[in-house]
């Protein structure tokens, strides 16, 4: 598991290569790599966004991300996982977050990657502030993100590993 909260940008190809550990034994067991990159959009809720500032809670953030990945590892058969989240001032089209999940099976890789993103959005202590032509504004949490998380909890009640 690799967890990083950083101001600097990340290189998706390099992170994927690192996770695969080119040339090691683990590498050739991996059959599937699912990944997600979140980017700063130039529009949100009808306003242009020129700067997105990400605040976080140092210490708790890394702990929360590690707990989410550990939970994913207990639900699916994973061979590796990388989560990188940037903080500080970002511009439209900048990369914000990267999740990479490796597994033998494509279904496991896809589900775990989406699970980690859903939980990250609702449980990891990051906050977004946008600069728009009308000034600064804090981004509101979305009901759709809470709904996205709740479907994994229903699955757990139905008998999957919690």
């Amino acid at each position, binding site marked *: 598991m690799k967890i990083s909260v950083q101001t600097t940008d990340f290189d998706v190809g390099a992170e994927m290569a690192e996770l695969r550990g080119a040339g090691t034994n683990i590498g050739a067991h991996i059959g599937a790599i699912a990944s997600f990159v979140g980017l700063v959009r130039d529009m949100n809720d009808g306003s242009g966004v020129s700067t997105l500032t990400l*605040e976080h809670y140092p210490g708790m953030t890394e702990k929360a991300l590690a707990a989410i990945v550990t939970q994913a590892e207990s639900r699916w058969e994973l061979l590796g996982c990388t989560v990188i989240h940037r903080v500080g001032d970002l511009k439209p089209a900048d990369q914000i977050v990267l999740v990479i999940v490796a597994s033998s099976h494509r279904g496991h890789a896809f589900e775990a990657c989406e699970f980690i993103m859903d939980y990250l959005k609702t449980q990891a202590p990051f*906050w977004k502030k946008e600069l728009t032509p009308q000034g600064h504004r*804090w981004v509101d949490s979305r009901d759709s993100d809470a709904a996205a998380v709740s479907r994994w909890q229903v699955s757990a009640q139905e008998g999957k590993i919690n």
Partner: protein
Amino acid sequence: MLNILFFASLRESLGTSQESVALPTPANVGALISELRKRGDAWSSALAVDKRWRVAVNQDMSTLDTSLKEGDEVAIFPPVTGG
């Protein structure tokens, strides 16, 4: 004493990011919030029952029932919006 941290919009509306406060009686999160609300309008408004705020104790999400002890780190913040 408790080490209280404030983040994001709560940090801005309360005008503080960190404070040391005495352990409340009873020693739990609910009592701490009640004490903070007594500090004035900005506090009672920001921490109103119908406002959406979250509390973490020693970096784990907590509820109003969560117990507190000397030296705990208590963070108060709005719902998270990362990703």
